[in-house]
């Protein structure tokens, strides 16, 4: 493994890694070690936290380098693909029009195009169950919003270039938004609280507002029933 760089803060190490496969292999391997209090994968990096009362940052950095250099058995599990229902109605996708403009297509074509793509979950992060998704296709450069929105609704589907995301809870956020899913992405009472997992294949199924309401209601009553 080619370790580009470990950036040392007093209780946190930020390590740049080449690509997503390396990140996922490294994260699984580091999870076998008890020294790390947090192991947080990014898209091209991983960060770990440790207790600086127990071990110095330099010692921790040496240990991390050593652990990452060990040959690792590739044991990143394969997970069932999932089709996530999305309503692309413009009330759920406030940025849909300008994104379509930027890509030189109509809103309808944008929806058809997006719901035909196949994505892979690259990581969970930002907030509980929030999923980052990547597709293979080259996409015109759509950047982050210059100033984050104060409020993005739960279930919102964001798009930045060849990445999409699903907001699991309402929050401030910087992704341009093209639609919304009624499905809940994080349920802490479950053994696996997050609906999606790293490496899972995800597609989007276009639904209308009526189906959106129906699914939202079903989920609500299911949660009340539990």
């Amino acid at each position, binding site marked *: 493994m080619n370790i580009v*760089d470990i*950036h*040392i*803060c*007093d*209780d*946190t190490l*930020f390590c*740049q890694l080449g690509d997503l496969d390396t990140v996922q292999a490294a*994260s699984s391997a580091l999870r076998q070690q008890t020294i790390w*209090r*947090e*192991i*947080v*994968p*990014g*898209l*091209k*990096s*991983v*960060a770990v*936290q440790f*207790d*600086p*009362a127990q071990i*110095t*940052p*330099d010692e921790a950095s040496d240990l991390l380098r050593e652990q990452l250099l060990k040959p690792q058995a590739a044991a990143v599990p394969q997970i069932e693909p999932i089709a996530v229902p999305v309503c692309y109605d413009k009330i759920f996708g406030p940025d849909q029009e300008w994104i379509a403009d930027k890509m030189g297509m109509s809103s309808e074509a944008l929806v058809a195009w997006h719901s035909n793509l196949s994505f892979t979950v690259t*990581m*969970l*992060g*930002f*907030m*509980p*169950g*929030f999923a*980052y998704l990547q597709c293979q296709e080259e996409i015109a450069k759509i*950047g*982050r919003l*210059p*100033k*984050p929105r104060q409020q993005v609704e739960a279930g919102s589907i964001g798009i*930045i*270039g060849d990445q999409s995301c699903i907001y*699991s*809870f309402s*929050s*401030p956020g*910087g992704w341009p938004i093209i639609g919304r899913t009624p499905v809940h992405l*994080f349920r*802490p*009472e479950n053994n696996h*609280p*997050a609906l999606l997992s790293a490496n899972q294949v995800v597609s989007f199924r276009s639904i209308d507002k009526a189906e959106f309401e129906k699914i939202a209601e079903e989920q609500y009553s299911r949660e009340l029933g539990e």
Partner: protein
Amino acid sequence: MSLTVVKPGLQTTLQGSPFSSHRHLGMPAAGAADSLSLALANHLVGEVAGAIAIEITLDDAKFVAEKHSAMALTGAASFFRINGEDQPLHTQTHMKPGDEIHIGPADQGCRSYLAVAGKIGAQSLLGGQSTYLGAGLGGFHGRAVKAGDEIQWAGNSEPDPTATKTPIELRPNLSGKYIIRVTTGPEISALTLYSQNKLFEEKFQAGRRANRMGLNLHGIVLEMENDEEMQSAPVFPGTIQCPPDGEPFLLGPDAQTTGGYPRIAQVIKADRHLIGQLRPGSEIQFVKISSQRATEIYRQKLSLLTPWLGAVSLW
């Protein structure tokens, strides 16, 4: 019934130790924004440093007691009154049924901690009980308390009769001005050299957008070396990020787990409890130190606290 909320103030939540080892699922730390004030309050009522207590923000708050219990208040409150009579902060105090407990607004600083002798009932999840407001999880039904809510606690532990007052030298000195030590972040070089220097030379003011997730920093506008989009990467409480508009922001305990803006600095672990006392308008001077020095400072701080608090960690 143990304590009924009469006036909740701006934001009053149940907070203790942060959540840990679930950041890879996107679960933030949450927990007390000022871990030091929490530990000091809990110690006065015989609870462990990270036990759940009541975190009160900026505004005044009122409660009515429903039973006998020891309690203690630490942090930013300008006064602490029982039935209109002033009580000292940082002191083991007692409540009896019917007492009106009034916690004054913060003159300096931002948050106060009311600890009680007993285990406060709070929603348990993922190995923790603190409130994470962003997703409505933990604490008191995942939310800030409202007037009429009843905060309950089991048992009636006997606090240590020899630990009734926090030693003066351990009481945090709250003012409107903060020196916060940082190490440089992994993307410090996203800033121009000029702005890298300015980050540690100029004073910043905490902006009006300030909450448990983080706060905006006003002052000089930082210049970016280029406007390259960054790949989303892990961030933590204490991370300072800089978006393209050049106005950096500092992440608090409820911070998201990953972010897409350059991480220009990281507040050292020993100083992170200060973030919980920053309020809109607070003046902040960031001082750059090495990670080795940061570790020394953290260990020194713990060794000052240990004789009083016993084994303790800050977050």
